[in-house]
């Protein structure tokens, strides 16, 4: 710097600076440059794969060799709808997903409500972490933990023995359909583990939704003569409902598509995910597997549309 009192001239050279000016006058181009890499990645790799898969459901298998034939045919779909047990698989999976969603909403709401409305700042941070840790920690490890807990000689049985409640456990396991030889080989076990694994996905959106309910609204409700219960039912619950819907997107979808939990804990009758996995793997019937995956895609498509209507995306 020679003339200390004067700032250096604003004109500067350099390729980067030139590029910056070039882009400054063209916000559209800059936007395109920013968007192109993620869009290309997701658009080509992800959506491309998704469409590849859906397209596969219009291919068929050669009857003799069992090898996939790349010719457009509706045979796979005829077979899909022709086989009644396929409907059972879909229905069983949907019922499980619905039950898990309901259970998670019931467990999650009080926790979220306490977190947002009553917990102090420190407690709240800790609770937050307590929800985040299982969410992000290993899925398999957590499933494995339940294998230990629910096993025939595992923790639940041991506690039942110690508390002289063995008869109760027996009685529960003897319930038709959902029962079984042990908790880890019954639908009850599958249900418990699903509910456990996806619970954080329900808690966080509800917390987000509750956080958006302004305190003044609750005070206004009280001021207008509503007691705590009425305020909860008439004000808090409706305002937090989009959060429940947002959470249910995850719990429902994740349950619908999971194939690992039911194969480790539960009966041998298959769920949707297991069926798809078996079809593409051991059976080598990619077209039928593809047809099966259309089901959750359609179900989730409808679900997402309804959820968007209900304002659930704001709570995501």
């Amino acid at each position, binding site marked *: 710097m020679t003339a200390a009192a004067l700032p250096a001239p604003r004109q500067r050279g350099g390729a980067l600076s030139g590029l910056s000016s070039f882009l400054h006058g063209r916000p559209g181009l800059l936007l395109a440059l920013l968007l192109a890499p993620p869009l290309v990645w997701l658009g080509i790799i992800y959506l491309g794969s998704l469409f590849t898969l859906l397209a596969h459901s219009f291919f068929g298998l050669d009857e003799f060799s069992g090898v996939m034939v790349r010719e457009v045919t509706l045979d796979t779909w005829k077979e899909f709808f022709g086989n009644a047990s396929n409907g059972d698989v879909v229905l069983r999976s949907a019922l499980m997903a619905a039950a898990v969603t309901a259970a998670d909403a019931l467990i999650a709401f009080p926790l979220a409500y306490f977190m947002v409305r009553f917990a102090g700042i420190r407690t709240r941070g800790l609770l937050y972490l307590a929800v985040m*840790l299982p969410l992000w920690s290993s899925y*398999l490890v957590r499933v494995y933990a339940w294998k230990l807990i629910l096993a025939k000689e*595992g923790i639940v049985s041991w506690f039942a023995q110690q508390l002289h409640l063995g008869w109760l456990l027996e009685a529960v396991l003897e319930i038709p359909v959902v029962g079984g030889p042990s908790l880890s080989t019954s639908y009850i076990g599958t249900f418990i583990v699903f509910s456990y694994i996806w619970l954080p996905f329900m808690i966080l959106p509800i917390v987000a939704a509750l956080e958006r309910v302004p305190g003044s609204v609750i005070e206004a409700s009280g001021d207008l003569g509503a007691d705590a219960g009425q305020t909860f039912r008439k004000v808090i619950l409706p305002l937090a409902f989009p959060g429940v819907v947002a959470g249910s997107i995850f719990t429902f979808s994740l349950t619908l598509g999971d194939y690992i939990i039911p194969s480790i804990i539960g009966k041998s009758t298959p769920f949707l995910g297991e069926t798809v996995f078996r079809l593409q793997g051991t059976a080598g019937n990619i077209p039928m597997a593809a047809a099966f995956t259309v089901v959750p895609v359609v179900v989730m498509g409808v679900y997402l549309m309804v959820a968007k209507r209900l304002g659930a995306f704001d709570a995501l």
Partner: protein
Amino acid sequence: MPSDRHGPRAGWGLKAATAGGVLFLHLPLLIIVLYAFSIEERSFAFPIPGFTTQWFGVAWEREDVRRALWLSVKVGAISMLVALVLGTLAAAAVWRSRFFGREAISLLLILPIALPGIITGISLRSAIGLLDIPFSTWTLVIGHATFCIVVVYNNVLARFRRTSRALIEASMDLGADGFQTLRHVILPSIATALLAGGMLAFALSFDEVIVTTFTAGQQATLPIWMLSELIRPRQRPVTNVVAVFVICVTFIPIIAAFWLTRDAQDTAGALK
């Protein structure tokens, strides 16, 4: 709703339900840790008959465990980098301007985690098969990066939204061109969000099994190794030890991410 008011008190029922929910979330993890120290080899008997730390040494000596661990770390790191770049670009674009199809971008980014993992997995598998691509680290990375993008995107976008656009204008007003503004203002503002998003992406990748089974071929990441042990157990105590190790490896980045964004609670956005 502010929580630090002295107004309402929670009833014991609500407190019990909260405590129950937290216990439900954490007891299984504690039990895994407990079993890692068990001397019992064959069954899941409870209470465990005795304590030992010998399995940690045994697990570390296992060649297959170390190979799986190395693959998981490698895939996690590369996926994290890809997700960091793509997620940040998408967040910047969405934050910068309102453009047609903005909503669709968010939906597209959420899709890989909103749709069941098996769909993402089998889609990638069928595309890999169609194009005759051999399975490799890169097929794993493609799958993992796809669902990790949204984690970075949400973290960074949440930070962007709390960053005043006027800061960028102020920087340019003071003579900084776009790249100088990026270096001196934008990157420092989003640094912790990037770090948190990156760590969560790593944790997500390190742990993923559903999509991984479809894109791995014969390779075994740590979760794949665990899955095979769960279905066909060979040495249960080693599985227990690996499980504890995995808990530790994922907990550290999560707590760190939480700490980095504690003022902003961006981590909530990480879920989305």
